């Protein structure tokens, strides 16, 4: 089934699954570092992979509030395991970035800026919710009036292979948020995994060139229908739903609700939700000085609105209670974010539910708030 024609942008082709390895190899030849989901320590992480054999073949994940488990599926797919705590955020907005080092020089300081260079990443298996999260972080870190150089440097070189999600987990609700499970845009290649082939929709010129001369056939009507049905079925299988009607208004009109105090009694303020959230963007900068006081290095690190020091001021703490911090987090995600960036700050990936040790579920909390105000 060799095909000499380069597939057009927007067209969907079918390849035999092993052919995908050729695409991965070509990405590597083009200088890309391949990042994909991998099984590690009985969970799923994102890390460097060489080829498809390292993907979580045959796995799905079982997820509920406060629980995550990798299990072997009856059917064998490469891309059916819904991710764990990690997200692509850690590559574009790393948890720790060296900014500069200063050396004492007389009265002043000599600066050496850290190099911005990072590998060119190829992300393999970006789900619709995660792609939406990347687009949300683009709005934050690449504003027209201020572009974060550390983010921009990484982001502008990323190659994205997205996947239509066919096996949502118990804490998923991307369908409610309007982000998935179908990938809309922003990819180089979009993959749908059928039992015997991968369907690939071409999204960029670079992707087109990578497909040069590989063995493919145009996706048949049967394949496309099968894919559509699988995506629709996935949309019906979301473990959670969130009613987004009037969502910013609902949250912002109820900032005085006693419900926040009630959540505050369950929340541990551990910040897990903010660390696993693919859109949470808060950061801090910290100095580390050598013992002799002659050099100091400045590092950008993730911060969390659940940290007690987050709102610390000379006059005291703006949000001293856990309930006020939870309210800040949720009213930002599902409220004020909209005014700031035009979208909600939640993509429906469900990580904050899965990884909350107190099993707090924002879909339940919003439902409770809704019920209370009715």
């Amino acid at each position: 089934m060799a095909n000499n024609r380069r597939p057009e942008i927007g067209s969907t082709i079918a390849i035999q699954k092993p052919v995908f390895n050729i695409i991965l190899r070509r990405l590597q030849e083009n200088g890309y570092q391949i990042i994909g989901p991998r099984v590690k320590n009985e969970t799923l992480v994102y890390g460097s992979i060489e080829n498809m054999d390292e993907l979580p073949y045959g796995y799905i994940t079982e997820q509920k509030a406060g629980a995550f488990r990798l299990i072997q599926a009856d059917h064998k797919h490469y891309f059916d395991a819904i991710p764990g705590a990690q997200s692509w955020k850690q590559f574009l907005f790393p948890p720790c970035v060296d900014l500069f080092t200063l050396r004492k020089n007389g009265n002043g300081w000599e600066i050496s800026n850290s190099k911005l260079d990072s590998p060119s990443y190829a992300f393999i298996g970006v789900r619709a919710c995660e792609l939406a999260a990347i687009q949300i972080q683009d709005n934050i870190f690449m504003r027209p009036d201020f572009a974060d150089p550390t983010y921009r440097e990484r982001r502008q070189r990323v190659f994205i292979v997205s996947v239509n999600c066919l096996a949502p987990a118990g804490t998923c609700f991307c369908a409610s948020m309007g982000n998935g499970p179908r990938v809309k845009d922003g990819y180089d290649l979009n993959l749908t995994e059928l039992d015997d082939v991968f369907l690939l929709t071409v999204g960029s010129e670079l992707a087109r060139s990578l497909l040069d001369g590989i063995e493919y056939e145009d996706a048949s009507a049967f394949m496309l229908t099968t894919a559509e049905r699988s995506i629709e079925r996935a949309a019906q299988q979301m473990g959670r739903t969130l009613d987004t009607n009037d969502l910013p208004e609902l949250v912002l009109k109820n900032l005085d609700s006693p419900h926040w105090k009630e959540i505050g009694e369950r929340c541990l303020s551990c910040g897990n939700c903010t660390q696993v959230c693919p859109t949470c963007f808060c950061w801090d900068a910290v100095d580390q000085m050598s013992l002799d006081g002659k050099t100091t290095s400045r590092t950008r690190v993730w911060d969390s609105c659940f940290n007690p020091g987050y709102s610390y001021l000379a006059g005291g703490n703006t949000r001293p209670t856990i309930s006020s911090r939870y309210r800040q987090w949720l009213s930002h995600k599902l409220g004020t974010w909209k005014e700031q960036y035009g979208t909600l700050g939640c993509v429906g990936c469900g990580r904050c539910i899965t990884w909350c040790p107190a099993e707090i579920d924002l879909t339940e909390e919003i439902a409770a708030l809704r019920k209370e105000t009715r």
Partner: protein
Amino acid sequence: MAALQTTAISISQTNHLLEPNWAEITAITNETSDVSTYWLKFVDPSMQAGYSFKPGQFNMIYVPGFGESAISISSDSEDRDKIGHTIRFVGNVTRAISRLKIGDIVGLRGPFGSPWPVQEMEGKDIFIACGGIGLPPLRPVIYHIMHHREKYGKVTLLYGARTSGDLMYPTEYDEWRKADIDAQITVDRGDANWSGRVGVVPMWFYQFRLDARNTAVLTCGPEIMIRFVIYEALARRIPLENIFVSLERNMKCGQGSCGHCQLGPYFVCKDGPVFRFDALQPYFNVEEF
């Protein structure tokens, strides 16, 4: 409309996040036992020549090894030779600043944030109500009015501090009065050195007659004082659009990126620190928000 329009302020496109420029401490003025004004000048003369700010804006001052602190600019915006920062020594960074001497070098980024609307207020009476360390961010407004006195109507400053020893810039009040600025000073607690007003700022507010249709109220200070100043102003039927507030929040980047200074939909460092009160009203009485 959200916060004040900040069209005049462009946030610099930097290639290196948080990279400071270096400035030398050229003079230190001791204001009170725990407050001093640090006069800074960029080490690079062209940087100094190119630097300008508007009244109400702030800089990030960086002490290597300790970190950055957001400090409002307290000097005359028309004086291009030096930049004054009146600093209370209360935190990690500001205490490190307190140990610096003339000739020492600090990092400086800025200016950031929205200014007081000095142009928009032309033709109006101005009522400035501030407390404690809330005067420094308003001193550039006072200087601006002094430079352009004919453009403003009646100008009143109501300023309070805890004790007479905590008053900022006491030697300047007479100059301000000479420029037809009615400087009224009050202290929370009187003592042997004080023969003036005693009582908190909002308490004295009622003594002043304001033309509700044509007065702009500017306020900065402890949030509890701001709250009561605003109640007083609203009770006098000053429209929300003529009340301006400068707020303090934890700030790390100055560019609306790091998230710390959020107040509802606003990043105080970018959309503030100066807000028109109608933008703040929905969130103003929400506790711990």
